[in-house]
């Protein structure tokens, strides 16, 4: 709510009114006046802010002045593409990151552990769009293993998945490192605990001890991080969508920024920010549900 008002206020503090910027230098004064009135720009700031917040509460994000379609429809049309990409990336990252983290925790301080740690830091540090660009260059353009652009034929699931591989990998690679590090750290802690020692003392095979006794607890911090991860990945998804020319929220926002289409910029940023806040909230709640220490401290109060 606060963020929304801030965003709206920001647009108003900027010199030059949106109407003349949008119509370009060759617009006639009558045209400008008409658009100004249609967008309600002639009313006082507080009235505008009030009606703006009211409209958002009703789920109305205004109208795209170029195509005259409601912004909400445009944004929610593109959102599924981005969500699929982000979910695919986070799934891929977990499937790779969790085993790597376990592995390096079990073989602590071996050369393998060090190599994984090194790669993890490297993947976290390198900007994801550079990884995406190099993936396109090497795997799509040079080797032609994967398609370089597009989201695949509509209705053809196999083709869509085929188009999803590279962007999801490029987006998720940093998170592989992050998850591996987290799992390793919490796994090392859990392995010291009593119930793991008891399980070992009962002679359970190491695979069972790690897989079902230790991992079940060691994975908790990772799950809560994933919620925030999905939110932060929205930023990375923007680059992935542009590099791979995929439809999605990021591409929509980029095009809107390039054409100075303020209502669409606003709507996109609003929806993604809302989504980001929602993810953080959900991960906080999940964290509280999963972590008995937090739960107990709540009850103690």
């Amino acid at each position, binding site marked *: 709510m606060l963020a929304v008002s801030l965003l709206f206020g920001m647009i108003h503090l900027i010199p030059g009114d949106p109407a003349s910027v949008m119509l370009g230098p060759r617009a006639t004064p009558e045209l400008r006046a008409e658009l100004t009135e249609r967008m309600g720009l002639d009313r006082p700031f507080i009235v505008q802010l009030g009606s703006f917040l009211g409209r958002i509460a009703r789920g109305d994000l205004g109208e795209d002045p170029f195509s005259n379609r409601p912004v909400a429809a445009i944004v929610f049309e593109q959102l599924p593409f981005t969500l699929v990409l982000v979910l695919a990336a986070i799934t891929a990252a977990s499937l790779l990151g969790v085993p790597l983290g376990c592995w390096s925790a079990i073989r602590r301080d071996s050369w393998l552990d060090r190599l994984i740690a*090194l790669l993890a830091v490297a993947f976290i*540090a390198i900007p994801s*769009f*550079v990884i995406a660009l*190099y993936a*396109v260059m090497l795997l799509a353009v040079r080797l032609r293993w994967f398609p370089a652009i597009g989201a695949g034929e509509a209705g053809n699931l196999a083709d869509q998945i085929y188009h999803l591989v590279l962007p999801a990998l490029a987006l998720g690679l940093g998170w592989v490192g992050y998850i591996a590090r987290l799992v390793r750290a919490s796994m090392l802690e859990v392995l010291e605990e009593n119930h793991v020692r008891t399980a070992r003392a009962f002679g359970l095979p190491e695979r069972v001890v790690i897989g079902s006794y230790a991992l079940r607890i060691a994975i908790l911090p990772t799950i809560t991080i994933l919620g925030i991860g999905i939110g932060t990945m*929205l930023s990375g998804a*923007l680059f992935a969508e542009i590099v791979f020319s995929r439809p999605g929220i990021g591409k929509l*926002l980029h095009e809107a920024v390039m054409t100075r289409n303020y209502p669409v910029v606003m709507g996109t940023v609003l929806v993604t920010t809302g989504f*980001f806040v929602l993810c953080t909230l959900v991960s906080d709640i999940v964290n509280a549900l999963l972590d008995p220490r937090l739960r107990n401290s709540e009850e103690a109060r």
Partner: protein
Amino acid sequence: MIALLRPHGLLRESLRKLRGNPLGFGGLVIVIVIGVLTVFAPLFATHAPNEVDVYARLQPPSGEHWLGTDQLGRDLYSRVLHGGRIAMTVSLVAISLSMALGVALGMLAGFGPRWLDRLLVIGFDTVRSFPTVMFALAVVALIGPSLNTVIGIVIITSVPAYARVVRTQTLALRERDFILAERAMGASTWRILRHHVMPNIAAPLFILASMDIPAVVGLEAGLSFLGLGVRPPTASWGSILSDGYAYIRNSPWPLIAGGIPLVLVTLGFTFFGEALRDIFDPRLRRKT
């Protein structure tokens, strides 16, 4: 920070420890080499960064053009060096300003009245509730792309991180005995902040800054890649990548030239930052 370290010979001690950490030392070497190359870019460059040579378009590396040429025949090696200046300027200016602002706001929140603290924390949380790149794009859409816009965006988005660290440390220090004693002896708030709080928050701040540099360099390159950072023909690692991406089917060299320094700088600063953290904060080392 130097003044803080000298009396204990801590600087020498840290350098010695850093040498025992090959990755951190390697990171420092990368940072120094790239720093020198970019600061003295005109000396090391073989061509002017914007010198167009249409007969030598999209060439692979050669004795004449060490990293090849781009779609206008501009020398990529020289452009990369000059692009490094942009990256370094943005990160140094933006990070030092956000650090200064973060220290001021964080201390204000930590040492000031309760209502001000609440207000500031709400402010920090508001800024943090935007996904960074989305926020950056919205700002660029409003005030137009330029280097100053990029710096401004970095400052707005990173001040909360610094301020939070400072606030937490200040709050923790505030009730400690030595501060209370100082206060009982009649020291002013300013004196306490300057002589007692500052030295205690310097180390975590510098660690945070060195870990922040890769993110800032990445953001600048990302925005320039999107055409929302520096204006053409100025060379930036992001704009080199963007040009290279447009000609990806003709030549891989612009992409390689633009990406390698980005990878090196982010890795260098990250490894160096991690080493710094290990040296100054042994508690964290045991955890991760």
